[in-house]
């Protein structure tokens, strides 16, 4: 069919001398694809909820391609970070998100840019979905002045409007997130705060303190536990007396969601956001997901789990593959289109990596800046008494 169209198109071009044929082919191409389809998604386990998110999810071709683009960009960006780390161009801590892309992409699709989001240190994916470019992320990882935090924050400390990082202390971001939700409630702006933490952090005391206050004050806070089965090298069974993380909010309603299915995540997050916006108070969501890399770049990730397990998830449950297969089998897009998107993303990530390795580091003059906000310049003691440095707000 396509070859015939190509022949007709070329013929038309020769006859008319114009590029009419191309338009004909393009118009035919789009009409071939299903513009929208509905998919069955896994039912969520519910805690203290009468009803949950729908079990069927609509997906438009446009949104599907956007999901693919987002998840593939995060995937390739993380793999590039892996490469740069092994080349010792990225230093220190680097916690990669590949495998968990559906969580970030699905959540972002369910909220608006004026909503708020905060997470822990496995933050590169969310930094991207919240609006920071791959270029600015990679340059921050390589510690250059073109990084989103001018090279002063690094992997765990990237920020954007309505995105509060990137937090290094396990669990500390959870009270912060409830505080952001308090601000939303206080200002009456109908916004919500998505507050993420991992299965490891789920055992932190401050999270339970936060659950109590959020429920007491009905804060519009969506607590999301990204359960990737391992807190560093400790499996969930070895860390938690109860691994039903969606129930750990006790008096707070909860749902357990298939975190590898971007549509599941989107529907659940939408459900949760509606719950909060209706003034019903906080809600807990557990996203069952998986990370391909170890805890960080210093962890090969195979001493506490088998390679077979990792391979099994990759082949049967990969979020990007699942979306792609769904769209292909429903004729929502073509394999060529996905390939084209892949090529574009590869270029974007390569260009970003190029920038991140060639951009200069922040100048020494910047060393002491940004200690205080809105203040006149401050004297800062250097390494020895003769080193008198200056800090500008």
């Amino acid at each position, binding site marked *: 069919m396509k070859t015939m169209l190509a022949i007709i198109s070329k013929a038309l071009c020769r006859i008319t001398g114009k590029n009419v044929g191309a338009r004909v082919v393009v118009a035919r191409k789009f009409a071939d694809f299903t513009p929208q389809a509905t998919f069955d998604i896994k039912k969520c386990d519910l805690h203290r909820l009468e009803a949950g998110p729908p079990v069927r999810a609509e997906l438009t071709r446009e949104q599907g391609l956007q999901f693919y683009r987002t998840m593939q960009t995060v995937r390739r960006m993380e793999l590039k970070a892996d490469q740069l780390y092994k080349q010792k161009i990225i230093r220190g801590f680097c916690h990669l998100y590949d495998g968990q892309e559906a969580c970030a992409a699905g959540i972002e699709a369910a909220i608006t840019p004026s909503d708020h989001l905060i997470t822990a240190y496995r933050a590169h994916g969310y930094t991207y979905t919240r609006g920071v470019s791959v270029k600015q992320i990679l340059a921050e990882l390589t510690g250059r002045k073109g990084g989103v935090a001018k090279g002063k924050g690094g992997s765990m400390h990237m920020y954007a409007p309505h995105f509060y990082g990137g937090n290094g202390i396990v669990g500390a971001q959870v009270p912060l997130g409830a505080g952001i939700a308090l*601000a939303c409630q206080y200002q009456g702006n109908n916004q919500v705060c998505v507050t993420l933490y991992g299965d490891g952090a789920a055992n932190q005391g401050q999270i339970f303190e936060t659950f109590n206050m959020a429920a007491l004050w009905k804060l519009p806070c969506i607590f999301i536990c990204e359960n990737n089965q391992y807190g560093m090298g400790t499996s969930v069974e070895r860390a938690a007396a109860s691994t039903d993380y969606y129930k750990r909010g006790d008096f707070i309603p909860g749902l357990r969601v298939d975190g590898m299915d971007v549509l599941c995540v989107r529907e659940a997050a939408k459900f949760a956001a509606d719950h909060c916006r209706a003034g019903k108070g906080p809600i807990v969501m557990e996203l069952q997901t998986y990370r391909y890399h170890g805890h960080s770049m210093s962890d090969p990730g195979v001493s506490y789990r088998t390679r077979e397990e990792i391979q099994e998830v990759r082949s049967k449950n990969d979020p990007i593959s699942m979306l792609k297969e769904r769209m292909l089998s429903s004729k929502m897009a073509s394999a060529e289109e996905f390939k084209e998107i892949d090529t574009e993303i590869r270029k974007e990530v390569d260009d970003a990596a190029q920038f991140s390795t060639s951009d200069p580091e922040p100048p020494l003059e910047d060393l002491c800046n940004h200690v205080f906000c809105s203040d006149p310049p401050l004297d800062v003691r250097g390494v020895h008494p003769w080193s008198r440095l200056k800090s500008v707000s």
Partner: protein
Amino acid sequence: MATSLRCFLRSGKKAVLVAGRRGFQRSAPAGVQVTVRDALNQAMDEELERDERVFLMGEEVAQYDGAYKVSRGLWKKYGDKRVIDTPISEMGFAGIAVGSAMAGLRPICEFMTFNFSMQAIDQVINSAAKTYYMSAGLQAVPIVFRGPNGASAGVAAQHSQCFAAWYAHCPGLKVVSPWNSEDAKGLLKSAIRDDNPVVFLENELMYGVPFEMTEESQSKDFTVPIGKAKIERPGNHITLVSHSRFVGHCLDAAAVLAKEGIECEVINLRTIRPMDVESIEASVMKTNHLVTVEGGWPQFGVGAEICARIMEGPAFNYLDSPVTRVTGVDIPMPYAKTLEENSLPQVKDIIFSVKKTLNV
């Protein structure tokens, strides 16, 4: 100031008006007696009224009127939204306060005493103090952490620690330690208006102490700048530097020493970080002798820092003797009255140290 105080006590407010320099002001008395507690209350009241993003949260701050009654009347006036009672969850509510500051509010987070702030210290340091720097200026945290600090009376070891040195160690924080009512009101207002995290160290034993406040300090826009020390009493023979309650002890010691012809210059630090070293240096270059006085422990304390800074600066060459530190005893605080009294600097200890430093 001493004269007008005596006048006031003898013949009431009118005497102060006459004794004060503002004889032409007919509208209101120049000075008025205000306790530190009421000064703090006024500061919060005025700032709550001025900026609706300001709110107070902590244990018992609302319906109980504050564990030490510092927030008396505020909940009645401003309601649940602006004055929030929290459960006993320091780490949780400190984090919530910090998060709310990140998202545009201006919280005042009260710790019932700073001893309990240790539960929450990670949020103060890692979430509040460091964030503006880590984000290269993208994320400010305009928050005040306030509460009583240091020894009280008979509350024993776990409730008597001074945290000035702990918090002042950290870049990204401002640490303020008022002594009298004017300090308390002016500095708290500055702290609330400051866009940075401020640790505001009050003193429980000072809450009930009245001080005369000038008319100027009654104004709703009266603030005392953070980062500037005040010379409470000028003198030529020796410099005494202190903060919080012990400023009063220094002034008492200075009064006794004056009778013996020793004139002490008493400096009230007001702010621990950023410390106004220039004021101390200028004083030392005049008096050639320095004694620091604090309630906290000696090791790695405020006095230790002052010693180091003086040595590194121009004032070192003007010292006629090493700097003397007068501090709390290097032990956990005991309970028994005599033991407790002897665990903290008394006026006689300051007098003794001054004479030793002057070699008289």
